[in-house]
């Protein structure tokens, strides 16, 4: 490697000093590409005519030097070193016809492109920052006037809205039964309570229907609800052993009576 350096017009001393300077500064680099760009400057040529081979050698020398100084390089620097070593071998050896993928020259060209592009972006960034800047070189109005936003709200309603609103209001009374609709519903608890009270008097078989409260037998809605609730209540009482239930045949009236118990 050292002899390579000598052939490359860079004296040993210069190279070492250069490498050491770089190493001291390694934290200042923004990754391997940045370092490569800096190294490429020593070639003092247009980036487009840069010798990638030479650059690879410079980089490898740098890594070598760092190792000698027991300097820990971040992994990406080492990855780049490995890749450049690979590239170097590609560039030096005759191309393997079996091998697919980009040739050494293509890889080198791309690396050169990357360096040139990075440099171009840095130059562009510098030119951008050198422009006249607002708040430094030119200034906006110091006393802006607020644009008062006048928000005008326009309310609208459709005829349908109007009629529905009215209809709602005028039929509120008609709807009221909805809240009282529960009057057409007898809960099992209600039936249970009622039945418990009545069963005490009924030692004889009596149809379930006869247990329906007054006023619940005629209105079909109420009757249905009361019947269902009473039936459920009867089942509950039977389960508790307080009554007996019987039904002569399918769809025959259901009859209940108090179960004769020890209590009497």
């Amino acid at each position, binding site marked *: 490697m050292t002899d390579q350096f000598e052939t490359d017009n860079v004296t040993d001393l210069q190279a070492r000093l250069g490498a050491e300077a770089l190493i001291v500064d390694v934290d200042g680099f923004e990754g391997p590409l940045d370092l490569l760009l800096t190294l490429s400057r020593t070639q003092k040529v247009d980036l487009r005519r840069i010798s990638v081979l030479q650059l690879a050698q410079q980089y490898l020398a740098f890594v070598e030097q760092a190792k000698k100084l027991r300097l820990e390089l971040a992994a990406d620097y080492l990855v780049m070193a490995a890749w450049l070593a690979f590239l170097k071998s590609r560039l030096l050896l005759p191309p393997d016809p079996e091998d697919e993928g980009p040739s050494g020259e293509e890889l080198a060209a791309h690396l050169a492109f990357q360096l040139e592009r990075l440099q171009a972006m840095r130059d562009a960034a510098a030119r951008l920052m050198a422009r006249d800047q607002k708040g430094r070189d030119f*200034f*906006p*109005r*110091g*006393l802006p*006037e*607020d*644009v*008062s*936003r*006048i*928000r*005008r*709200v*326009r*309310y*609208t*309603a*459709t*005829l*349908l*809205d*109007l*009629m*529905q*609103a*009215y*209809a*709602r*209001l*005028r*039929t*509120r009374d008609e*709807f*009221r039964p*909805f*809240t009282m609709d529960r009057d057409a519903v007898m809960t099992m608890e209600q039936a249970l309570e009622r039945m418990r009270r009545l069963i005490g008097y009924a030692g004889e078989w009596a149809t379930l229907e006869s247990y329906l409260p007054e006023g619940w037998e005629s209105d079909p809605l109420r009757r249905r609800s009361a019947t269902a609730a009473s039936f459920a209540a009867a089942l509950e009482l039977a389960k508790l052993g307080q009554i007996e239930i019987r039904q002569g045949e399918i769809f025959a009236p259901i009859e209940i009576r108090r179960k004769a118990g020890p209590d009497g």
Partner: protein
Amino acid sequence: MAESKVQKPQEESLFEAPPMGEQERMVEAILFASADPVSLRELEDRMPHGSDPAEALQQLKKRYEGRGVRLVRVGDAWAMRTAPDLGFLMQKETVETRKLSRAAIETLAIIAYHQPCTRAEIEEIRGVSVSRGTIDQLLEMEWIRFGRRRMTPGRPVTYVVTQEFLDHFGLENARDLPGLKELRAAGLLDSRPLSGQIPGLPEGDDEEAGEGDVPAGQSELFNE
């Protein structure tokens, strides 16, 4: 941009002051960029030695005469201001269309169907008190107006709907509004059951507080 510096005849000066045209530019830039009016003294301090900001100000003032911006004196300082006749440009009007609140539409409906109609009657039908805001809004929209006073004790004012109202709703006459029977026939009465609605409960805020501020439980009724 092409820099065509205004070259005014150089005034006699002991110092190497910039030409007056240049001084005028300077005053212009300083006044433009400054957040506060700038005093003559401060202009002097900021401009190159030997400048005559007072003269520059006079020239600048003349230059801006009749323009959209003027040079004005504020106490002993100077500032740039937009011309007062253009103040209307500093407003931006946005029109937002919003649906009328439930309170307002119900009130409006009652007035339309029962006009002339007193506030007490509206409240009786709605079962809640009617806020002044609701009535005011409808008055302001010119959908209702005052009718004759009712010849009952207290001589309460009545409300009637306006021509504007009829125009908006495409009606020739308030009497053209469909009656309850027709509404029912049209299926308009098949509203949902009034769950949770307790008749006569004062609603607290009858006000159309924003769009959706109707207390939950009631709002749901009205968002069909």
